[in-house]
């Protein structure tokens, strides 16, 4: 039940004005919320939003993807050519080797399709850290990737896979015709390797975000529904389901605009602000690396090109340019103030949302 026509291809390919991050930021600012996110946070906590220590290095290897999902905040797709260069990959590997990082979280696009994806996984898992592959599932079926699930299993990589609904209609409406059936095929292969099977130690977690302009159900009730229905209908197993709110970024803004839902949706997110989500927001322990080596507070800030906040040099008082992956010293980012905008209400609405699901 989809009200608006389905556009084909990325915003960039269609030369859509929203392809520009500045246009996305302007669309969000144009909603006219009564209070900014920073003001709301200031009223409900002791100070501005700030990070703790950096425990997660989230590497976005680029915008190339074999799918063109309607809600994609990255505006990824087969036509996108922006992928991480060798120099940036090398810098990421150097950081992984040099710094103590608890988790390396690899995303995209379809991260598996980056030519050096396996090398990043290898380096990150060799260091003993936890490694996450944010998978769209269908990439595993591509001929050159058929051995990839076994490669990931051997290294104990956690797979976090997108599956917005346990039925084809809703899933395909968001992710493309035929994606549901191919996702099930991939899930079956992962299960056969032990992924998602209790006792195997191989974590297969699902991400589900609403197929439309509404908040997700409670994570616990969704997980129970998905577990029952995926098992009953298709014999598919998984470990956990993470309920994610759609953030108004990228092609999801286009969907909201086209369907006449943008203002109501952003207002709804703001009205659903829950201060209990603040302590666990992902930006507080994560640093996000873009395909070009720039650093951001999160993947959404990356897509909106909201830079790390400039800090004053302790000696000269002058603002220093934000660090890039080439000169990254994680300790320098501890305790930093986080750059925020209207889209941040998406992570604090209701039970909250993060790459690891609900927060409160």
């Amino acid at each position, binding site marked *: 039940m989809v009200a608006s026509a389905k556009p084909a291809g990325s915003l960039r390919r269609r030369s859509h004005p929203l392809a520009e991050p500045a246009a996305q930021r302007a669309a969000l600012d144009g909603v006219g919320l009564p209070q900014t996110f920073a003001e709301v946070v200031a009223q409900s906590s002791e100070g501005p939003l700030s990070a703790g220590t950096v425990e997660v290095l989230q590497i976005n290897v680029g915008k190339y993807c074999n799918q063109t999902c309607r809600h994609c905040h990255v505006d990824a797709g087969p036509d996108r050519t922006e992928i991480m260069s060798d120099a940036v990959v090398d810098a990421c590997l150097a950081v992984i080797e040099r710094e103590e990082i608890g988790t390396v979280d690899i995303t995209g696009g379809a991260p598996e399709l980056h030519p050096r994806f396996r090398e990043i996984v290898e380096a990150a898992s060799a260091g003993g850290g936890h490694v996450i592959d944010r998978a769209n599932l269908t990439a595993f079926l591509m001929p050159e990737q058929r051995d990839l699930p076994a490669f990931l299993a051997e290294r104990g990589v956690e797979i976090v896979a997108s599956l917005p609904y346990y039925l084809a209609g809703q899933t395909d409406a968001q992710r493309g015709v035929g994606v549901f059936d191919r996702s099930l095929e991939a899930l079956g292969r992962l299960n056969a390797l032990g992924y998602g099977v209790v006792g195997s130690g191989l974590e297969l977690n699902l991400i589900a975000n*609403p197929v439309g302009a*509404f908040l997700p*159900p409670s994570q616990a*009730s969704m997980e129970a529904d998905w577990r029952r229905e995926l098992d009953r209908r298709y014999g598919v197993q998984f470990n956990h389901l993470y309920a994610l709110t759609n953030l108004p970024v990228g092609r999801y803004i286009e969907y909201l605009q086209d369907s006449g839902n943008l203002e109501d949706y952003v207002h709804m997110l703001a009205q659903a602000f829950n201060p209990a989500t603040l302590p666990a927001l992902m930006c507080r322990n994560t640093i996000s690396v873009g395909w070009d080596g720039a650093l951001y507070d999160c993947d959404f800030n990356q897509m909106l090109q909201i830079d790390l906040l400039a800090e004053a040099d302790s000696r000269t008082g002058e603002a220093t340019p934000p660090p890039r992956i080439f000169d990254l010293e994680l300790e320098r980012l501890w305790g930093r103030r986080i750059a925020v905008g209207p889209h941040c209400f998406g992570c604090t609405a209701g039970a909250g949302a993060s790459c690891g699901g609900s927060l409160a």
Partner: protein
Amino acid sequence: MADGYYDPEGLKQFSQIGEEAPELWAKFSEWYTAVFEEGALTKREKALIGLAVAHAERCPYCIEAYSRSCLESGSNAEQMTEAVHCAAAISGGATLVHGVQMRQHVHRLSM
């Protein structure tokens, strides 16, 4: 004042009903919230009941609110449509069962 009887903005103004009778509004709000909390019935079951009743009451505000509420509690359009059919069936049955009264009147008045 709105131009018509049903202004789409009306739902957002619902709480203004409390301005002239705040204590009654507070009691209603507390009771209403408690009714739809998870209990012997799940939130989703209650939202589907709310959707069905909204249709039986023919309340456009309630239909909007409970369509969203059903989606946000995990129901899909197929399940919601079945809930509306439940409302329609009860409404139709309620009309039809009054035919018994009609028949009693007919028998009383007829030779």
